[in-house]
């Protein structure tokens, strides 16, 4: 087991190296010029050229690549070409809103979706099942920004219960203020994941509920709730965990729309802003971090399989 984990961790190195090379080359091949953003609309071609020179953008690609890699190996993600702020500072300011929102979203989604999925499987082909499945289709199909605007309209504008926008750090403003501001965006994001996880739970549970050991447990007179949550759900957990894990990774990397609608200063917006401004060091760092998140989350999922399903051994 330990050897497996070590091998998986070591495998991260070549993966990240390949990602780094691809990101660097792709960005340099994309049209765009950070000097033009800095200089503004009135800059003449000569002024642009001088700024490119000062920023080192005129150096050969290979030189730029090795300079970047050299800094990266020393843990230095570089400095934003646009604002001059260290990239680590920028990511440090922006990553916690995203992580906190993602965690809250996953907690809400799991708390709602798993019981829903279990219930749908338990009452297979009843109105409960159809209701859960209809909600799932709806949750998948409605774009996240539409759900966000609907929630704002109902809970903020009409009822006035919750704020329209903004983020409060739980460490600075307290958990109550954080939840007050985070509940709407998290609910918005959770809609999709509730749909996804509920569907997966239902499918997985349906498969398990037909197994002989479930019939045996019921024949022995085990309480139905124990059959469902102890015997069935635990055996159905592996695919559900996979969905939850990849869902978390997706939340870290893909919440830009929700961040925009609710004005949350997270890394989704940071990435999009950096792409629009061709802020190479920030984009490179963000893609590396996103890739690392996926690799680590997948590793954690693989390890957690052994906890939920003792038959799995590495």
């Amino acid at each position, binding site marked *: 087991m330990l050897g497996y984990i070590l091998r998986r961790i070591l495998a991260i190195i070549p993966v990240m190296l390949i990602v780094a090379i691809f990101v660097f080359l792709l960005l340099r091949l994309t049209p765009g*010029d950070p000097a033009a953003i*800095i200089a*503004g609309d009135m800059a003449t*071609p000569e002024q642009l050229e001088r700024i490119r020179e*000062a920023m080192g953008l005129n150096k050969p690609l290979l030189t730029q690549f090795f300079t970047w890699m050299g800094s990266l190996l020393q843990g230095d993600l570089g400095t934003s070409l646009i604002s001059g702020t260290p990239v680590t500072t920028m990511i440090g300011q922006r990553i916690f809103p995203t992580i906190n929102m993602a965690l809250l979203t996953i907690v809400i989604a799991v708390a709602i979706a798993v019981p829903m999925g279990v219930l749908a499987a338990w009452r297979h082909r009843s109105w409960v099942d159809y209701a859960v499945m209809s909600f799932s289709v709806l949750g998948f199909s409605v774009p996240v920004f539409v759900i966000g605007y609907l929630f704002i309209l109902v809970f903020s504008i009409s009822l006035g219960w919750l704020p*329209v926008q903004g983020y409060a750090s739980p460490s600075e403003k307290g958990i109550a203020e954080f939840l007050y501001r985070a509940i709407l965006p998290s609910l918005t994001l959770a809609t999709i994941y509730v749909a996804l996880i509920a569907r997966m739970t239902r499918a997985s549970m349906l498969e398990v509920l037909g197994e002989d050991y479930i019939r045996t447990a019921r024949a022995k007179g085990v309480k139905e709730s124990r059959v469902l949550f102890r015997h069935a759900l635990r055996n159905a957990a592996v695919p559900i965990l996979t969905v939850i894990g990849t869902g978390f990774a997706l939340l870290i990397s893909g919440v830009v729309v929700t961040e925009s*609608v609710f004005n949350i200063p997270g890394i989704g*917006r940071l990435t999009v802003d950096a792409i629009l401004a061709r802020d190479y060091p920030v984009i490179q760092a963000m893609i590396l971090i996103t890739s690392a998140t996926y690799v680590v989350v997948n590793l954690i999922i693989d390890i957690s399989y052994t906890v939920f399903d003792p038959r799995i051994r590495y």
Partner: protein
Amino acid sequence: MASTALVGASAAWAETTITAVMHSGLRVLDPVITTAHITRNHAYMIYDVLVAVDGTFTPQPQMADWTVSDDGLVYTFTLRDGLKFHDGSPVTMADAEASLKRWATKDSGGQIIMDKTASLTATDDKTLVWTLNEPFAPLLDTLGKQSALPPFIMPARIAATPADTAITEHVGSGPFRFVEAEFQPGVSVTYIKNEDYVPRSEPADNMAGGKVVNVDKVVWSTMPDASTAINALLGNEIDYIESVQVDLLPLLEGDPDVVYEKREPLGYQTIGRMNFKHPPFDNVKVRQAAMKALDQQAILAALVGNPDYYSICGAIFGCGTPLADATGSESLTSGGDLEAAKALLAEAGYDGTPIVLMAPTDVVALAAQPVVASQALRNAGFNVDMQPMDWQTLVTRRASQNAPADGGWNMFFTNWLVPEISSPLVSPMLNGRGDSAWFGWPDDAVVEGLKADFIAAKTLEEQQAVAKKIQAHNMEQVLYVPVGQYALPQARRATITDMLASPVPVFWNVKKAE
């Protein structure tokens, strides 16, 4: 550290804070390295200027008063008393000298003045003497301009930074202090009242007059989603939105606690620019044909929609400005002239060379113009290749002098604040120095000669006479196509009052009722 302490101190009493959503996120903090409006607006918060223009575009004393020698060659500026930088050090004319010299290496107006400068020297802490080789009547107008690069005064040690390298310390002597510890690039920026600031005694007027600060704190927040900003204003979570898309105004109607209005009368001018280096627009007849094909009304209707917020205007210096003149713009302002366009194309022997028209799709204020224009050009007989792209790709590509088929271009549209094009000395499109000119690179000795005449003009009447000739020349050579003026209204809570009607949104003079 100092900023944090100041925030702590100001939080001790009930603060008056204005939360404002600006048109863009602040990322670049150096007002000399970029012409971005948001950076200039930031600079007006924390820096001060020697000279500022009032509502009639007349230069007025701000940090300094001045005298001019009878021969117009020696300007002597005298610093007013009580001015301090935010680090506590007094402002001296040595700081002004260093700041002006750094500014003049980047600003086109500053470069012209420096070409005529014999010396620029702080003779003592309070006195700066600017000696010219030949008279330059618009010197004070250039120092007082509010776009694109106003000459902000910063400590000499910071102004010693090379002009192509961004400054890393942000210390001004203006009415607000920048709170570095709370700055998140592209997200939010916080300013607190500079308690040491000594405003002038005159009432505030445009960028001139007393900069009296009536609030403790101003927070600029960036909201990428326009609807979110509107909802936040309705929900009393923010106080002010700098620019509201006209099609979202109905959302604000009927709320007595919210006010929307034009901040100032001039607004923006939207323009089309052609590439003089490559066919077919290297031929003046083809440029004229393209201009004849365009109809301001059609473009503005698509761009803005609500006629309350746009106006037909054929003046290259902008309607409502001292130099406004509409000579030669008749077709543009009266529906276009397709027949004349077709005749000019035939006369030019246009062979169907495709026009690469760059169309940015990610900037709302620039998306409609190329779409409407491409159809108008096609109607006149042009073969138009409209290429959608993001604005970043456009600004990179427009710097390319390659042929359109090799990554170059033929035409694009952009917008300017009217003060940015209100004089031949500031308008980028009227630079006729070929490869050194603004994108499009016209090589036009006549316009350069007319600009020299403008500089030599001694009175407003003489300047207006030259400006009229420049207008006529522009419309004949089609250095650029003025496509009309429009305004983006601002919106505020009714508790926010006394905002100044200036092209730059400023937060002095403003009051916030509890």
